[in-house]
């Protein structure tokens, strides 16, 4: 959690889209920005990209006011995936409330996915976060491409970890809202356990998730 100010009745949460370089983290946020209801969120800030590669991060802010008047901001970040930007990843990862790990489904990317996930584990430990309790979802992106890891293989590898796994094509715009929705859900549960969002502020999970994942055109479903 970035900030919780009881006096100002304000809470700022941080979600981080992590993953190897070019796995589609920024595309995920761009699509969320396009798909989701404009009311209750800000614009996507794409910070310093060079040749379509993120150097710092992207930021998509949301905000909800709980019935109690508590203002909750949810800021979704991406990290740069390239190995050399590890310091930036650590900096962005600080005080994260939830992480979506965006893996590249293409078979040759298996090693990069593995190394990036290991890097996530190391950096979480570095910034003092516990991977066992931190809300975490995994998305296997680029399902629209050929030469990709089979779904059954992915399930057999990730199933035992208990981490929710989603298949998606950020480019075609499917699977990413489910990823985000589940992460938001887990983040609510995690935050509610400590800050009693429902009990003290009258904000329940359905309301929270519904507000954050409301599509701009609710009638159109893929």
């Amino acid at each position, binding site marked *: 959690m970035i900030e919780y100010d009881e006096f100002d009745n304000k809470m700022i949460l941080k979600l981080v889209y992590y993953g190897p370089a070019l796995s589609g983290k920024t595309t995920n946020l761009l699509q969320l920005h396009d798909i989701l209801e404009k009311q209750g*969120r800000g614009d996507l800030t794409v910070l*310093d990209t060079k040749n379509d590669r993120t150097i*710092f991060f992207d930021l998509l*802010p949301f905000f909800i006011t709980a019935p109690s008047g508590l203002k909750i*901001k949810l800021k979704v970040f991406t990290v740069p995936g390239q190995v050399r930007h590890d310091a930036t990843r*650590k900096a962005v990862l*600080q*005080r994260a409330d939830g992480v979506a790990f965006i893996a590249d489904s293409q078979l040759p990317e298996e090693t990069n996915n593995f190394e990036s996930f290991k890097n996530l584990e190391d950096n979480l430990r570095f910034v003092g976060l516990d991977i066992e309790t931190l809300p975490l979802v995994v998305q296997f992106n680029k399902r629209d491409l050929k030469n990709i890891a089979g779904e059954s293989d992915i399930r057999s590898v990730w199933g035992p970890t208990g981490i929710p796994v989603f298949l998606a094509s950020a480019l075609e715009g499917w699977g990413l809202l489910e990823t985000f929705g589940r992460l938001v859900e887990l983040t609510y549960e995690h935050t509610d356990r400590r800050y009693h969002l429902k009990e003290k502020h009258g904000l329940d999970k359905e309301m929270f998730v519904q507000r954050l994942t409301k599509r701009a055109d609710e009638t159109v479903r893929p």
Partner: protein
Amino acid sequence: MDDCKGIEYNGNIIGADKDIREIIKKSDIMPLFQSAAKTGISYIALEDPEGEVLYQCGDVSEFPSSSSLKKPLYLEGEIAAQIVMMWSDQKDDGFRDIIDLIFLSAEMVLKNKFRALLAIDTHKTVVNQSYEELLDTNRKLKQSENKYRELADSLEKTVQQRTEELKRAHAKILHQEKIVSVGQLAAGIAHEINNPLGFILSNINTFNQYVSRMKEMLVFYRGALEKGPDDNDRKRAEEKWKRHRLDFIFRDIDDLIKESLEGAERVKKIVSDIKGFSHIDEAYEVETDINKELDRTLNVLTHEIPDDAEIIKNYHSLPAFVCNPSDICQAFFNIILNALQTGMKGLKLIITTRRMTDHILISFSDNGPGVPEDTRGRIFEPFFTTKEVGKGTGMGLNVTYEVITSYGGTIEVESETGKGATFTILLPLTGEEVDV
């Protein structure tokens, strides 16, 4: 937050909310406000969400009857500030476009400043974090450096200890080498001593027999004298004299004594040579005549010199050299013995001594098989031997090397396989030597 136990960097958390005052400074917005004033805006201001005026241009009271606009500026989907503008009622409808343009410009300034600030913050955080990590790395390096320093200290002690042990072991080996060379000599020396001792013993035995015959003769004479000798006595005395071959005995006694004395002298000389070579009484440095020490060494090696060998002493007068004569003899001994042990028929060994400007030169030249090129560089190494296992200690020339270098001297070998070898020793002179 309490769920964050990791490293913190000056509370600079990426994503923390920023106040409008942090994002937009006066210098960021004033150029826009001044341009607005030029277009005919009578008053323009930036207010925080609560309505407090942060920066302004123009005066509200100047035009009491005027149109105005108050419009929020959004950041991250929330109102971050608002722009307030006032202008004269006389402006036409087209002026509205200018108002919109000014507002859009203000929005742009805010967005760009916000992005720049985020970038700067991230950069700062990364730099701070790298710095903290560097400090941490530095601290760890220091720790390990200390550890290694301690290790190095104790290592130095261990090395010193081992060096002492090695020195003692080396000294012991040098001592043993002396004993070994004496041992090598022992068989020959034993033979040398045994020979004269053998005939001295046999002579003494003979002499003992001669004495008992002479005693018998004397006893007979004394008895005859006491009672007064008669012709019979004289006859018996003559018989006895002849039977005991006393004429021969008297002649032989002289030879016996002369031979025995010579033998004893030989034994005495051998013992004295060994004593001289070993310098039992001189375990310290004295002024030494190198030529004399070479002779001593050759003396103890006499029995090792084959009959057909020729030793040529090409000595020149030398100044006294201050050294431990026992050591220097040992050094010569090992070189000479090596030459003698080549098993060469018709060995010729030339020993030359010469005074150079500031050195004493001693060279040993033989016509033996020489030192093969591949081993030439190693012959002074300890434990290096070309002899069969158990025959050589490999210490001989190493001892020579150690002794010569300990006096600041040098030793070199020149050799051609099959054409003999020349060992050249140079001992440095201090310039205070006196001729001997």
